[in-house]
């Protein structure tokens, strides 16, 4: 756990050279036929470990459960855990190690888009398979990634119209962290706002990790907006909500409607700062079904923390292992990236959030959009949900529709972009 020292050493060229040589020396380790090795790759150290550690835990929990109930087609799953260290470059190295040296047929991992983009070339060049559990900005159509988190249309197509109709708010202030996810979300939001006859008064960004929100909240107050759409990510969220309340704004009159603020951020900021605000996600810890309550209990006892919270990406990390298991079994127990990719198409699983299905065209998941209002206890109350899961449309910002897909099993129709 001496990450800082290690990071420092890595920068020195001598260590870098040794690390680069190492995978070649150990290539080709024999494997028992009664086992299937898979990669589990999240940041266990560094700034992002706060969230990513929980995703790794959820993945390992699913693996343990599957092994306890007989494994995959009679074989035991053996996880090889690697640490992405909150650094895209490290992610790339670890992905290469898992794919080339360990020769795993699948890696479960990555949290940020930056880390996914960093490992994508490894999986595409080696024809391997990544299971990616995070909600993300869309605009990707890889045959080597199964995306089980929400894409913009699954977080926004219900949210924006709901804000305009049920809250009666028409003037949006869009604010986000300055990188690709918030910017793509803003793009989709603007389309939906204009369709609904609303307007957006500002579209502002602050750098990731920014914690001085005085000027921005002042601007929100002066802008004359009646709702704030927040795509702010990470610990900036906490500073933002706290400043919002400290400047005398209220979620009753000017609610923050967020796409990233989850149970983790709410817990970290103190629930009273978010009470009354809204978030849109396909999964909340507060989903009042038997399946979900049991899932939360199992997770808490797995991590030995009676107060642990669950959230969307964590739930995806969990159920995607089950989808993977079904895909391997559909392929007759043969686990290669190709057979798993074919096997996963159209797989259905009853996850804690409800039924999920993998779209055979774009390998994204059908998910059920939900909106929750946060209470003073740090938990959401589900106040709106779709009756059925909706189709994932990773290119919705560019005009993709359910009957007009850009990303199909044949690949991406680049002429449409």
């Amino acid at each position, binding site marked *: 756990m001496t990450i800082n020292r290690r990071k420092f050493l890595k920068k020195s060229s001598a260590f870098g050279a040794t690390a680069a040589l190492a995978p070649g020396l150990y290539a080709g380790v024999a494997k028992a036929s009664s086992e299937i090795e898979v990669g589990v790759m999240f940041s266990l150290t560094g*700034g992002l470990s*706060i969230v990513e550690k929980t995703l790794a835990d959820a993945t390992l929990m699913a693996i343990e459960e599957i092994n306890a109930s007989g494994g995959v087609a009679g074989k035991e799953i053996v996880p090889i855990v690697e640490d992405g260290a909150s650094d895209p470059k490290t992610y790339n190295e670890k992905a290469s190690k898992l794919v080339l040296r360990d020769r795993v047929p699948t890696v479960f991992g990555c949290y940020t888009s930056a880390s996914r983009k960093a490992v994508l070339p490894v999986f595409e060049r080696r024809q391997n398979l990544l299971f990616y559990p995070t909600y993300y900005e869309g605009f990707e159509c890889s045959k080597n990634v199964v995306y089980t988190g929400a894409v913009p249309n699954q977080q926004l197509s219900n949210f924006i119209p709901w804000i305009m109709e049920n809250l009666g708010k028409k003037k949006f202030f869009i604010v986000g962290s300055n990188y690709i996810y918030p910017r793509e979300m803003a793009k989709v939001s603007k389309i939906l706002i204009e369709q609904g006859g609303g307007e957006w008064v500002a579209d502002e960004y602050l750098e990731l990790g920014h914690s*001085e929100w*005085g000027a921005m909240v*002042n601007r929100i107050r002066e802008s004359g907006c009646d709702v704030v759409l927040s795509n702010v990510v990470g*610990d900036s969220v906490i*500073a933002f909500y*706290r400043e919002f309340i400290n*400047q005398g704004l209220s979620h009753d009159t000017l609610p923050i409607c967020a796409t990233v603020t989850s149970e983790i951020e709410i817990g970290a900021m*103190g629930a009273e700062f978010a009470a009354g605000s809204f978030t849109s996600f396909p999964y909340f810890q507060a989903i009042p079904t038997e399946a979900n309550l049991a899932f939360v209990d199992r997770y808490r006892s797995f991590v030995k923390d009676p107060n642990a919270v669950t959230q969307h990406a964590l739930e995806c990390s969990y159920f995607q292992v089950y989808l993977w298991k079904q895909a391997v079994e559909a392929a007759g127990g043969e686990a290669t990236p190709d057979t798993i990719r074919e096997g996963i198409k159209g797989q259905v699983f009853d996850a804690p959030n409800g039924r999920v299905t993998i779209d055979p065209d774009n390998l994204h998941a059908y998910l059920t959009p939900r909106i929750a209002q946060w209470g003073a206890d740090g938990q959401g109350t589900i106040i709106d949900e779709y009756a059925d899961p909706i189709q994932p449309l990773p290119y919705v910002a560019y005009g993709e529709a359910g009957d007009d897909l850009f990303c199909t099993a044949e690949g991406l129709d680049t002429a449409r972009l």
Partner: protein
Amino acid sequence: MTDILFIGLSLSSILLLIALGLAITYGAMGVINMAHGELVMIGAYTAVLSGIYLNFNMFVALPLAFATAAAVGLLIERLVIRRLYGRIIDTLLATWGVAILLQQMIRLQFGATFFDVTIPGLGPGLQNIDVPSFLNQPFDLAGFTVQPYRSFIIVVTLTLAVLTWYLFYRTRIGMQVRAIMRNPDMAASCGIDVRRVSALTFAYGSGLAGVAGVLLAGFKTVQPDMGSSVVVDGFLVVVVGGVGSLMGTAFAALLLGQINGLVAVLSNDIVARAVVFGVVIVLIMWRPQGLFSFKNR
């Protein structure tokens, strides 16, 4: 307009709060204390832990954090820095090591992580402190919205600045510190116990960092690496203000905070940050010794 001034003033007060401790350890003692941010972090964790286990509110946590950070500072001085006076680059490396050590101690819960024990309030997660509710409720005063928490920070910072000034320029020990700053050997030959005074000065500077931590915790998240970003701002202020000058530190904090606030309101925070760095570069080119600095004879 008053709004903009207030934002600037509030930014200034936070800068000064962090820089005040550094102005003493770096400015007065010539120690590049990279662990200053971690002392801020320790102050913040003192507030978190005393809130959880002792039910202390923020106001009680302030002196407690001062004492804790000062004690840790004293320990660092005794164990490491004492051997490194006059070796400015060595202090940078050594305190950087101390900083990493302190961060990991909190992250690994002093080792409890290895035994699968979770101590609420420690560990790699995000923590927060409760701010008394009357500090969260803004009120109107002659058409101007007063933000109690920000105002509270400004008041505490001013108090600490005045107190520090008094200690340094109006007390016997302050005079000894200033004598050591100018010339430690000469001070020693005049009968000043240089080791003892230096240790106390370092502890005092560390204690100020602890207080800053409690106040920062009110609007930031508390996490093990929260200190590494604030320490840069602190050094910026001290260098611009002039090494060894309290007055300069205060003035530089006010200047940079106001510039930051003004540009942030007119344009945005990212541009504001760039402008601040630009101003710092120009100022250092113009006066490499800082805005205020004593003459060496």
